[in-house]
């Protein structure tokens, strides 16, 4: 379970969010610039709220100035809006980065399956700068889906994909959701996607849920 | 030639003569207001190479005969103007409070001593000569430096017990009081030569300046700085 109660002053408005996500997929919709990415960054520990609390599976990961668990110990999987692929690593290495050494050996088949499903297994040895925009996005998706986190954050993860690739992504996400039973927060501007995937839809406007 | 250039006399001087030459310059320019001495200091080797490459110089005053010979052999020097201007003496210096003499260097009393590098630094060459037959036995104790100043640094910082320096350097070596003369018969005369550069366009004034260096007035300055008068 993910529970959030935080506020943070942004340049043009204040982000002020109360939200609880159980083992469900919540879709976060909202105008561009309304604070969605910032909220995700706060949950992942990449931005500091001005105050409030965040807890994951009953562990408090943020509480005002008293508690701040750094990102590497929050167990949050995160697909970044701008992918944040490592430019110096191949696709394969990028995806495996989320795994520990021992997992890497054990999970080889799983990694292969994910790459296959997303249609990027032929790009394994390519560097991010050698692949197309949508291919990059699929690498970012793969990287987040090879290992079970405690919470999964997805910032417009399918925005650069064609209908077929989107479908494959949806399928993968659905099966992962079944397996993992974790809170998932997905940002999208696509209504069809929202309705197809979301157990619950929430809307953000100028930093507030409504 | 501009007027300023006409007044200028360029002197290339070994850096170990810096203090002497600064006084000489003042005195000479006062006496000869029409002359502007432009003094160029450097190691004797550097100066010799500069003259070799056609750098402007009228008078050459190195700290050793070797570098004078180097330029002479290349025909860059008006040999008729050659004179020995001053002499120097080798002394053993040690740190204030300690006192070692030449004999101590040869005995076991001294663990290490500093001297100029014998192949290239004149002070080192003379020191090696002074050590004579004992050189073989004491050379392991020797630390080589590129000039007397570095020898002094080693003594002052306690990294060596003693070192060979020139008497003329004594005046400037703060913190090194205990000095003992090296027996004179053990090394050859330490000569400071001077001559007019062959290419000089102002050889007359240059010769006049060389003559001034041999005058009583400047010889006193040499003397005051610990050199022995030449002729």
């Amino acid at each position, binding site marked *: 379970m993910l529970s959030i109660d935080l506020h943070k002053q942004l340049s043009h408005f204040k982000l002020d969010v109360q939200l609880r996500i159980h083992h469900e997929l919540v879709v976060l919709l909202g105008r561009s610039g309304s604070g969605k990415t910032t909220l995700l960054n706060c949950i992942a520990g990449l931005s500091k709220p001005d105050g409030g609390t965040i807890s994951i599976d009953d562990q408090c990961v943020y509480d005002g100035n008293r508690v701040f668990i750094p990102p590497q110990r929050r167990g949050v999987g995160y697909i970044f809006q701008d992918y944040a692929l490592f430019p110096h690593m191949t696709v394969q290495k990028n995806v495996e980065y989320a795994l520990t050494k021992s997992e890497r050996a054990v999970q080889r088949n799983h990694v292969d399956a994910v790459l296959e499903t997303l249609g990027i297994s032929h790009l394994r040895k390519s560097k991010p700068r050698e692949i197309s925009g949508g291919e990059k996005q699929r690498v970012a998706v793969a990287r987040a889906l090879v290992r079970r986190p405690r919470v999964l954050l997805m910032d417009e993860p399918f925005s650069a994909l064609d209908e077929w690739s989107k479908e494959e992504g949806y399928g993968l996400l659905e099966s992962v959701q079944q397996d993992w039973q974790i809170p998932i927060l997905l940002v999208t501007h696509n209504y069809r996607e929202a309705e197809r995937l979301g157990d619950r839809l929430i809307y953000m406007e100028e930093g507030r849920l409504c | 030639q501009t007027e300023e250039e006409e007044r200028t006399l*360029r002197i*290339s001087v070994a*850096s*170990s003569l*810096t*203090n002497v030459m*600064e006084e000489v310059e003042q005195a000479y320019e006062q006496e000869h207001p029409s002359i502007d001495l*432009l*003094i*160029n*200091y*450097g190691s004797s080797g*550097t100066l010799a*190479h*500069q003259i070799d*490459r*056609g*750098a*402007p110089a009228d008078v050459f005053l190195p700290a050793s005969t070797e570098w004078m010979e180097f330029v002479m052999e290349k025909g860059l020097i008006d040999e008729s103007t050659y004179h020995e201007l001053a002499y120097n003496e080798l002394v053993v210096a040690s740190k204030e409070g300690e006192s070692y003499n030449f004999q101590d260097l040869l005995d076991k009393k001294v663990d290490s001593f500093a001297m100029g590098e014998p192949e290239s630094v004149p002070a080192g060459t003379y020191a090696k000569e002074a050590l004579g037959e004992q050189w073989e036995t004491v050379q392991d104790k020797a630390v080589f430096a590129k*000039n007397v*100043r570095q020898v002094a640094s080693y003594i002052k910082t306690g990294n060596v017990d003693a070192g060979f320096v020139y008497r003329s*350097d004594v*005046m*400037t*070596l*703060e913190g090194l009081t205990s000095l003992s003369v090296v027996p004179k018969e053990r090394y050859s005369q330490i000569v400071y030569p001077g001559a007019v550069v062959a290419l000089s366009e102002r050889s007359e004034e240059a010769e006049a300046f060389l003559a001034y260096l041999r005058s009583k007035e400047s010889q006193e300055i040499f003397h005051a700085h610990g050199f022995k008068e030449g002729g």
Partner: protein
Amino acid sequence: MDLFPVWLSLRVATISTIIVFIVGTVLGRLFARGTFVGKTVIRSIFMLPLVLPPTVIGFGLLYLFGREGFIGSLLNEWFGIQIVFTWYAAVLASSVVAFPLMFQSAVTAFQQYDANLERAAYTMGAGKWKVFWTVSFPLAWPGLLAGVILTFARALGEFGATLMIASYTKGLTNTLPLEIFFSVESGNQSQAELFVVMMVVLGFGTVFFLNKWNGSPYNN
């Protein structure tokens, strides 16, 4: 106290830095992207003034720029200029010795940003010159600035090559490092220390000022 050495050093270091900055930046850009035959060879040759002891560099410069030297004789014949033993020689020495620092920094600086941004600028009709000044240069600036700092510091401290080709003449070529050396040589310890302090103040001050002037576009 005669402050001439301070001004001279500041002047020599500043002019050298400007020259080296311009030459280093242009060559750096040239060598950063694109390939041509002998690129790495030339890049490595450009490092030699850093490898060789300054005295050797000074020696080489003396050979080239001396009255009988290849360049020196031409300069003398054509313009009646004589560089050796003047403060221009100090600028020359500092520039040559500091050049590798700027060059290496510049090459790296021009390799570090996303070249797509230059391409984007081209599509908007910007010519090579405009793209260089408005995109490449500002994006490379942090690396170039690092080069400038190293260059200035090195130029300020240059001693060996300067002594060789400019020599030490009071009121003419007595930069701070030379003054320090000769103060020590003539046993004037306290004066040497004073010059060292000036040098530290000058070097520290300028480097501090330059360091403040940083604005990495990626800094966050």
